[in-house]
């Protein structure tokens, strides 16, 4: 296993978290849309396995955001609950819970980056 750059990994995870947040927003916005299936991103471990630590690997047909070339697959999730007549599969409580997870992971991510960045700065100071 080659050594992994902490800052690169943190950037990668924060991009993945942002895409997940977008998928959650789409689900909540479409909570009453007939026929809408709830979507989510693929797990972060799968992204790492698929693309390694390299930033900038693109695959056609995936949702990409902004100037970065990192793309993450989102897909409709399997639904095992009782199906509504409108065929909508969004459960608002689950979406809000996922949003909470995203927030916690994001806070950890920025805190780690801030701490190591601060350490680097303190070493080069004076």
């Amino acid at each position: 296993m080659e050594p992994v750059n902490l800052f690169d990994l943190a950037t990668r995870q924060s991009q993945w978290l942002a895409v997940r947040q977008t998928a959650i927003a789409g689900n909540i916005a479409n909570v009453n849309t007939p026929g809408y299936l709830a979507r989510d991103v693929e797990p972060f471990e799968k992204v790492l396995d698929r693309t390694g630590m390299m930033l900038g690997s693109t695959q056609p047909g995936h949702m990409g955001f902004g100037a970065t070339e990192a793309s993450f697959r989102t897909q409709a999730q399997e639904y095992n609950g009782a199906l509504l007549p409108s065929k909508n599969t969004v459960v608002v409580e689950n979406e809000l819970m996922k949003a909470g997870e995203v927030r916690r992971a994001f806070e950890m991510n920025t805190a780690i980056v801030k701490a190591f960045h601060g350490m680097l700065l303190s070493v080069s100071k004076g």
Partner: protein
Amino acid sequence: MLGPVGALRLTPALTSETSATSLSQSGTTAGASFADALAKAASSSVGKLENAEALSVEALKGNADTRQVVDAVMSAQQTLQAAVAIRDKIVSAYLEVSRMSI
């Protein structure tokens, strides 16, 4: 009777102190033990940094206990801060000595 080795021996209760205090203890005996103390402080600092980095990578992948990561990073920040302070003191001491008129 304090020998160079005796100055560096830390009881288990004191192992959690920072490298700065361990250095001040060994400062009572001058000479070769100071270099040993510095080396020990530096290596413990590197060890804590490596541990903090490894735990942070696990946390970014989503597999770590929050409190453990926070403790490891704080500990690394503490030892790094102490090591940088020592380095700065050594540099300024050297400059002061080099400015002394012969």
